[in-house]
């Protein structure tokens, strides 16, 4: 069914985002806005409507930005409000900046008890960079610990926003939500654009639909687009025929056309994922427009190798990454070959959560069994010849003699914890080569510890340690803080004399012995006995720092073959073959895949 009302004038459109620190109630607020505008009926509403990924709802986080078109009437005038939700986690800053580029305003949600947090600020800066109007909203006023007046003051002091008109709301309880909508209409500037100009649209996101192919999420800047329009992607130069346009209500709903100022989707039978580039500009063929400012490429922070457990699934993994990349422009990957794991990809992520999300999506949405190598960071390696190279894969670390120095990425970490765990957490931070900066009592029951920590220590097992030391109460936040010289070495693991590249690590010299011993001991447990003795060694620059031995298998049972019962022997062989299928060859050594993964996950 086609709607006939898509010719809204620009003064009647408002495009806005909601920005917030993680867990300050952004998704719940979005749900309330949709309810109050009648976009969804309350009884149909699942919690967190915009978090459409199963994973998002499960974890209570927003990863993907999702646009939704709402209708709202104020003072007898009808408005179309386009809301683009944004992720709150630091790993997804890039996604935020993309959605902000499609808006004129942002609703800044601040938790009435927690106040301004790291990500509140980061998102505000992004919004300001995009010249957005920022509307502060104090949320969670229903909580007993709410201190709305103090938080309003904090927002004025720290961010410099006028909070005199900031609504005090509770998204959870539905208090004062209409005030937000009124303010959006009154304060957020309406989009400027001319419907009669040639088409000019910004692709701010994309996703893959099994029936319609790759779908572009767009903000129309000028002109209009409808079914049959011949469009051209200015960056890739590809040309397509539009088969459908529409908006999200929040389900994709077909419209006759999308015109200047509007936010919606374009489907054009785009089969190849790589034909869409987020940040690209769409023009109409023959009426080319100016290219809009795209996005700058973000740099990954954490790297890991991803390999299919079953080597023959390499192409499926490749397709899956391509599809993920379509909706997650920040995911970087390039082919990688490992002697131990075969063909796979080295992937770069914006952070650990991002890495976890990607691997989980690969497993769930694409049904792939994958092996991920230990996460690594990118080191700046200064060579004796004056050259500086970035190394994120231990295999590419140059030989010791040609390294002048190595600098590793460091972070400013904020750890929030109830006071009784302070000691335990400080001990962890010390063990992780942390440099203590500050300890602040935010409230009686909440302490903020500030540390400078090497990123490489965080990607290892910091979260788990933090959680177990604080019985799950501590939370953790970080921002990149540049590079610092460090005594890093490459730790190699040798199985039967061969370096197992997938197990190589770049570690701090002080940690090398402990790590090496941990890995060799664990390997001894999981490497099954084979036809020959297998030495397991951990080495630094050829020097053995830890060693274990798996003794050779001595015998099978020589059993009687009763009455020509060959099937018993066959069954044994079949069972062995099954087992062998699950084996990976690491050099000359066979290792069950699960065992291999347990080594990679070692703490």
């Amino acid at each position: 069914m086609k709607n006939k009302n898509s010719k809204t004038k620009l003064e009647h459109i408002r495009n806005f985002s909601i920005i917030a620190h993680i867990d300050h109630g952004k998704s719940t607020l979005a749900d309330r806005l949709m309810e109050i505008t009648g976009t969804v009926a309350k009884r149909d509403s699942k919690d967190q409507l915009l978090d459409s990924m199963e994973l998002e709802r499960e974890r209570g986080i927003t990863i993907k930005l999702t646009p939704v078109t709402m209708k709202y009437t104020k003072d007898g005038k009808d408005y179309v409000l386009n809301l683009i939700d944004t992720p709150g986690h630091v790993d997804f800053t890039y996604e935020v900046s993309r959605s902000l580029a499609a808006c004129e305003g942002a609703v800044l949600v601040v938790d009435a008890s927690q106040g301004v947090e790291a990500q509140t600020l980061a998102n505000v800066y992004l919004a300001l960079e995009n010249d957005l109007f920022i509307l502060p909203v104090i949320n969670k006023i229903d909580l007993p610990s709410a201190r709305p007046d103090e938080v309003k003051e904090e927002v004025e002091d720290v961010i410099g926003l006028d909070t005199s008109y900031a609504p005090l709301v509770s998204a959870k309880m539905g208090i004062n939500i209409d005030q937000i909508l009124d303010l959006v209409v009154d304060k957020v500037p309406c989009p400027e654009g001319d419907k009669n100009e040639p088409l000019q649209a910004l692709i701010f996101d994309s996703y893959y639909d099994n029936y319609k192919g790759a779908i572009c999420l767009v903000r129309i800047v000028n002109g209009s687009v409808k079914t049959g329009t011949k469009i051209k992607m200015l960056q890739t130069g590809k040309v397509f025929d539009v088969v459908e346009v529409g908006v999200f209500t929040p389900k994709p709903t077909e419209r006759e056309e999308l015109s200047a100022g509007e936010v919606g989707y374009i489907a054009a039978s785009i089969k190849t994922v790589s034909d869409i580039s987020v940040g690209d500009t769409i023009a109409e063929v023959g009426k080319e427009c100016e290219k809009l400012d795209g996005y700058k490429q973000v740099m990954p922070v954490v790297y890991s190798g991803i390999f299919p457990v079953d080597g023959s699934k390499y192409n499926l993994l490749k397709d899956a990454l391509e599809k993920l990349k379509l909706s997650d422009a920040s995911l970087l990957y390039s082919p990688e070959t490992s002697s131990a794991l075969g063909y796979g990809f080295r992937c770069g992520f914006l952070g650990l959560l991002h890495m976890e999300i990607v691997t989980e999506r690969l497993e769930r949405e694409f049904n792939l069994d994958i092996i991920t190598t230990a996460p690594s960071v990118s080191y700046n390696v200064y060579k004796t010849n004056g050259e500086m190279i970035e190394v994120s894969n231990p295999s590419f670390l140059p030989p010791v003699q040609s390294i002048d120095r190595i600098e590793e990425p460091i972070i400013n970490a904020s750890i929030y914890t109830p006071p009784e765990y302070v000691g335990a957490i400080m001990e962890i931070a010390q063990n992780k080569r942390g440099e203590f900066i500050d300890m602040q009592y935010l409230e009686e029951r909440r302490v903020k510890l500030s540390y400078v920590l090497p990123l490489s220590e965080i990607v290892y097992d910091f979260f788990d340690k933090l959680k177990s030391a604080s019985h799950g109460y501590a939370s953790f936040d970080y921002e990149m803080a540049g590079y610092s010289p460090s005594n890093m070495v490459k730790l190699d693991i040798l199985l039967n004399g061969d370096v197992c590249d997938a197990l190589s690590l770049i570690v701090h010299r002080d940690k090398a012995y402990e790590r090496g011993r941990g890995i060799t001991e664990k390997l001894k447990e999981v490497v099954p006995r084979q036809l020959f003795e297998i030495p397991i060694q951990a080495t630094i620059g050829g020097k053995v720092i830890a060693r274990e031995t798996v003794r050779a298998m001595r015998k099978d049972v020589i059993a009687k073959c009763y009455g020509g019962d060959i099937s018993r022997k066959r069954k044994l062989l079949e069972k062995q073959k099954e087992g062998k299928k699950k084996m990976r060859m690491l050099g000359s050594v066979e290792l069950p895949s699960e065992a291999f993964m347990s080594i990679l996950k070692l703490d």
Partner: protein
Amino acid sequence: MKKPLSLYIHLPFCNSKCNYCSFVSEVRDEKCKQRYVKALVREIQIQGAKYNKHFEIRTVFIGGGTPSSLPLGGIREIMSAVYKNFSVKADSEITIELNPNSASAEKIHEYVLAGVNRFSIGLQCTNGKVLSKMGRTHTSADFDKTIETIREYGISNINADVMLGFPGQTLADVKATLEHLIALKLPHISSYMLSVEEGTKLETMIDKGVLYLPTEKQVVNMYNTTVSVLEKNGYERYELSNFARPGFASKHNNVYWNRTDYLGVGVSSHSYVAGVRFANTSKIDDYIKIVETQDKPPVSHAKKITVSEKREEAIMLSLRTMNGLSVDEFQKEFGENILSTKNDALKKLIKLGLVIIDKNNNIKVTDKGYLVLNRIILELA
């Protein structure tokens, strides 16, 4: 010309069950045994009608269980049925399994009259203490007496089964057992390792800590000692677990490893005829009932062996034998040059001293390799 066929006859009865046994054998009353023999005779008739036209029997093996636990006259009845329904070549090897204490002189007399010309006796060990822990009720003296009786009929082709790795068994026990057999000039010895099978009494006893198995190292020593003692005394290991003086290798046994046709009759027996492997039901009562009521062999499953399975079996079975895997014959049969297709695995195994390739282009497993044969097969299959 008729094709050669081997016949396996299964008798699933024992006077008592050894606590490590997981094969189809039970303690049953005389009435059940009679009904079973009747059903078996009927199966032989049915199968004779089917196979006699194209096959001639070259070897017969009467196994169990304990065939000698059948009452007097049972074996004669069964063998008469064989002779009536099949052509049995004149010099066929006809073997029966005995327990040292279940074959009276009369029974042995009956077997010889029924054409049996080779005896296989389950001695396992000469140490009575070890035997009784395993639920075996005979003694070493019973064994000697049985041998003496058999030899009175001029039969010298006798095998003894020896088991390695019983709880409480020592290397000295194994040596004593072998020396005893050598002194008796037995021409054939089969040597197996004890394996603890699921659901056996032995498994429970080990789990509960009532009995303890020897260590892997001890069992390896027992096996290596067996090989060296027997080879020193003129026995040749013609197959993984079988040792014989020249001319005494079991023809029936070789049928299995050479993949020639064999037909099994009786409960839980296995057959391999014309590229099809099939097996009878493994429950005694089902077996009797089906033959009695449906008048057909109670085949529970049959499978035509695919080429790839045949290839695997060729590797799996030939490597057990002294002659090994003939590269040329393998090439002829499967059109595959295994030296090239399994190049990496062979190189690795040769380097490890587990296999050799001899001057006739046969891949043979070494002494060291025999102990890990299953792994070698896996590498080459």
